[in-house]
Structure formats: C-alpha cells, structure tokens
C-alpha cells in the first residue's frame, strides 16, 4: 500500500494537449474516483499512473518514489480494465496466477494466493472455466481477482462497471467498496458515472477538459460545488440553474428571466447588477405561496418520490423532487421556493461560486 502523488502533470499527444497541469494527492489506503465527462483526460491520467502512457510534464510518485521513468511492471500496481482484458486462452485460475507465474513464484504459493482471492470473490467453483464461459459480472470479478492476487501497492480501475447491466452495476459497486474496506489498498477508480463516484469514493476528483475542477469528499462536492461545472455534474437529477442578475433594494434578491424574483441570503457578496447563475437542487425546492411560478410539464412518480419537470415564465427548465405525494396536473402552475441557506450562487462569466 502506498500514497500516490500527482504533481502538475501534463500530457500531450502530438500537438494536442490533453492534461493541462493536474495535481492530486492520494493518501495511503484512500479510495479516490476520477470522474468527468468523456474526453476529460481521466482515463489518460490513470494510464499514466499505470505507466501505459508516458508523462509529458510534471511528476507522478507512488509511495514516495517518482515513477516517471519506471517501467509499468516495476511500479507494483494492478489495473482492472473496462473490457476486463482477461486472457481468453487461460482458465480463471491461470488468469489469476499469471503475474505470479511470470515472477516464478513457487507453485504452492501461487495456489494459496489464487485460492484466497477466489474465496474472497466467490470464484472457487469457476476456477477451471475459461473467460468465454463466464457472465459479465463473473468476468469482472476475475479481473479483480487477478489484481488482488498480486497484492499490489495501488489498484487502478478504468471504468470497470460500464459493460455491466444496471442491476449488476449496483451490486458490483457495493462489492468493490466492501473489498476496499477489507483490503485497504490505495485505489484510483475512473468513472464517468457521478453516482458511482459519489457512492464509492472517500474522495472525488472532478475533471473537465484536462483540468481538475474540484477535489473533495462526495458530500462536500454535493453541498458546496466550487463552480458551475461541478454543480451541474454532481447530483442526479442535476441542480437547477437559472440565469439572471443580482438585484434588490435592501434585501438582496435574484431577478431571473420572465420576471421571477428569488430572495438571496443576506450578506451575499454578489455585486448589484452582476450577471449570476442561481443554483437550487431539485430536492431543496418546496411549495410556497411566496415562491416563483413554475408551469408543470411532466410528472414522474417513482413511488418514493414525486419528480416534476416544469418551466419558469422565462422558459427555463426546473426540476423539483417531493418526498410527499401531490396530485398535480400537467399545465398547472405551482409556486416553488427554497431555503436561503440551500441556494448556490455563481458568477455567470467565470462560473465560480460567489
């Protein structure tokens, strides 16, 4: 087990720069997810930690040792690939034993370590099968087994659940998290799915266009997004974002399109007349007579919640979630308001939190 330090790392493919100076500190034993939309550079960064991509600038250190010039096999890391990358001509046991076999480990040791990993993952009855004879979830587990057997310093996961169906994904999510709690190996996990990131990580790194947007604990990111990107990316359904200006005589207020006005927390630092974006999470909206009007477009009852999608007079989309049941009708206009403490305000030009 080891810490991983990523210091001001750059990556270019030819003239195209993919990563523009990324810095992340990963503490020993931590579970960190790199999350972001496709093309944000998260997989490239993971592959750079693994040594499968060269580092164009900056440093990566594993366990205090700078590994920029260290060959992948010398880095003592194990990686689980998106397509599992199981050797099709080897049985489950041979797949898991491969790295030990290359190290010329004694047969008895190989057998015990493979046996133990197989037991942890429930693979014992499948040891003599070939990958082709396994289901997606089983293959996923073999790929993890291959990583566990090596007892590496760091586990790297590259979108390991994206080839599984929704139900299995949820199950494997819990399984990976449990595995981490049990083994306490430093883990870097790449995903584009913010739910996966939220549910599994000790720490989330939100990446976008080759830079780090924000690093923090899952709920920190959820409650205090640094900028508009994080605000819109973390959370499902996404945060409602309304464009407008800061205004108000006396008590500060937000004035949006279509003449809506929403009071802002007192002491907000937004300058009068500045263009701002107001963010409210769907579950923080409640029915209130003093609120702003929203015309209901779609009603989606899920049983535990009632979700409505509506439009403000200015035509902006608003999503609201209610724990209690209401008998709304499409076309009906309701008035919504939010607790002042739960309102987020962003600078419309820079996207930064105010």
């Amino acid at each position, binding site marked *: 087990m080891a810490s991983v330090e990523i210091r001001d790392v750059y990556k270019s493919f030819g003239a195209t720069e993919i990563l523009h100076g990324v810095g992340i500190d990963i503490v020993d034993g931590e579970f960190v997810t790199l999350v972001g939309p496709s093309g944000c550079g998260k997989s490239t960064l993971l592959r750079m930690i*693994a*040594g*499968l991509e060269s580092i164009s600038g900056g440093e990566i250190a594993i366990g205090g040792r700078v590994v920029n010039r260290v060959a*992948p*096999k010398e880095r003592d*890391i*194990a*990686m689980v*690939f*998106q*397509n599992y*990358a199981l*050797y*099709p*001509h*080897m049985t489950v046991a041979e797949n898991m034993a*491969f*790295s030990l076999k*290359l*190290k010329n480990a004694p047969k008895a040791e190989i057998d015990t370590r493979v046996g133990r990993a197989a037991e942890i993952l429930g693979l014992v009855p499948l040891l003599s099968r*070939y*990958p*082709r*004879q396994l*289901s997606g979830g089983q293959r996923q587990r073999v790929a993890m087994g*291959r990583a566990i057997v*090596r007892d590496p310093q760091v586990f790297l996961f590259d979108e390991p659940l994206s080839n599984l169906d929704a139900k299995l994904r949820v199950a494997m999510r819990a399984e990976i998290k449990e595995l981490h709690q049990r083994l306490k190996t430093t883990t870097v996990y790449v995903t584009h799915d913010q739910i996966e990131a939220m549910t599994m990580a000790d720490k989330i790194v939100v990446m976008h266009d080759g830079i780090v947007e924000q690093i923090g604990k899952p709920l920190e990111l959820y409650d205090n997004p640094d900028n508009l990107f994080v605000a819109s990316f973390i959370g499902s359904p996404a945060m409602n974002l309304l464009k407008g200006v800061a205004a108000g005589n006396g008590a500060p207020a937000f004035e949006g399109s279509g003449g809506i006005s929403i009071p802002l927390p007192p002491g907000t630092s937004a300058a009068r007349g500045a263009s701002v974006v107001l963010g409210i999470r769907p579950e923080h909206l409640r029915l209130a007579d003093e609120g702003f009007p929203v015309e209901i477009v779609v009603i989606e009852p899920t049983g535990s919640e009632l979700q409505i999608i509506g439009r403000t007079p200015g035509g902006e989309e608003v999503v609201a979630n209610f724990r209690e049941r209401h008998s709304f009708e499409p076309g009906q206009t309701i008035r919504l308001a939010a607790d002042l403490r739960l309102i987020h305000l962003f600078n419309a030009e820079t996207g930064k939190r105010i």
Partner: protein
Amino acid sequence: MASTTASTKGTSSRLAGLTESRGWLSAWFMLPAAALLLVFLTYPLGLGVWLGFTDARIGRPGIFIGLENYEYLWDDSVFWLSVFNTLLYTTVASILKFVLGLWLALILNENLPLKSFFRAIVLLPWVVPTVLSAIAFWWIFDSQFSIISWALIEMGIIDQRINFLGDPTNARASVIAANVWRGIPFVAITLLAGLQTIPQSLYEAATLDGAGRWQLFRYVTLPLLTPIIAITMTFSVLFTFTDFQLIYVLTRGGPVNATHLMATLSFQRGISGGQLGEGAAIAVAMIPFLLSAILFSYFGLQRRKWQQGGGD
C-alpha cells in the same frame, strides 16, 4: 407447423403444404449451389479417380484395369522420388514461409512510419502472376547471367558461377527459395490480420502483470494466434504440395528428376506423355497426403477449448 398444414386433406392442400415446407423450399434454394459443386468439383474429381483405374490415353478411351496403374507406380523409382521431393519441398518451404511470414507480420504490426506502404509492398510477390515471377527467377538462377552469381563474384566471395538449376541440391534449394518468396505474402498478411484481432488491452494487462517482450509473445501473441496459424498453414501446405507452375517454368522437374513434384510428374506422364490413366493415378495418390494435412490441422490445431463459447 408446416407438417400440420400438410396433413390437412386434399391434394391441393398437400401441394400447398409442400411448397410451404421449410425443408422443401430450402432444398430448392440449395439446388444451384449443389449443381455447381457437382458439375465443377465432384465430376472432375470423380473422373480423375476413374481415369486412375483405366489405361486411357489421349485420343483413346481406356478400359478398366483395376489397380494396375498403382501397381506399376509402386515399383517406379521416379514416382517415389517425386513423392520424396514433394514432401521435402512442402516441409522446408512451409517452415520457412511460416517463420519468415510470422516475423514479417510481427514487424508490420508495429507502428512503423509508412506502414501501409510497406504492407502494400509485401503483397507484391503474391500479386504478380506465378509464371511471370517464375520467369524472373529463371533469369536470376540462370547459369550464365545470374545476378546472384555476378554479385557474389564482384564482392569476391566466390570465384565461380553457381550452377543453380543444373545441380540436384542447388536446384532443390533454388525452387524452394522461389516458392518461399512467392508464398510469404500470403502467410504474412493473413497472420498480420490475425495479430490485429488481438486486443491491445491484453498486452497492457500482461505488461502490468510483469511480462517482458518475449513473454508477451510467448503467452499472449502465440496462443491467441494459433487458430489463425493453423488455417493459414493448412492453406499454405496445400498450395505448396500441389505446386506446379513454378517447377514447370524453372526446371520442368530436372535435373534428373531432382525437382519433380507429384503434380509435375502427373502432368508429364498424363498430358505430355499421353498416359492419362497413369497421370491420373499419380494425381489421385496426392489425395491421402492432402487429406491428412487437412485432418491434422482440423483436429489438432484449429479449435481450442477456450474458443468454444457458452456451455454454462
């Protein structure tokens, strides 16, 4: 369900049932293909086998003489020499083609500059008509004007021209060299296609597992390429075993039958010599060899357990 419709009473409905039956309909659809196979494959093959049991000559339909042709060949040293030559030619040429072809495929699979250009160049020997390349080789191996002899003499390595096609050993080596040159592209390009089906992530996984370059080849490339190798080499062996054009242009089987293959001997006896029956018998004698090569690759190499899917 077709049979239930067919079981309803009346001839008209039975006819309707028949035309609706899947089996009946598919038989009709298969008829053209079956006819082509029968006329152009089964008939010539059957005729060849039949001729082998007759004493047919050109211009005279023969009569059935049983195994007489084969009995004659059994005691014919030239026939046995041609069998030996064919086996030698096939074995040596196939091994060389495999080794060099695989090596070339591995090189072409790397990220070279001008990759597609080199891949196109490799195909050239395969694209040129055999007879044309055979004539070029005939020139290269000429006892007077050979460019190889000339170059070696100029470099001071030898002082006498090499008698490429006049000496039995040299002649055998020369025709094998020409065959290898011609056969490499097929092996290289097919294996290259096979190499490209191996997912990059397997190499990456093996690299992280600690494999070096040789181990990557030994544990990832080679096992995953085996099915393609089996098919490619089966075809290569069949092509080489039945080779005719190259030998016919270069040596016509000489010197002193040292390069006579079964195919060239069959042609010489059957067509040039007019002994159709005997020529056919030699050709038929090739069938067991070819069949065993096919069966060997089919059962021995092609389908591995790990390739078989499902079966939970």
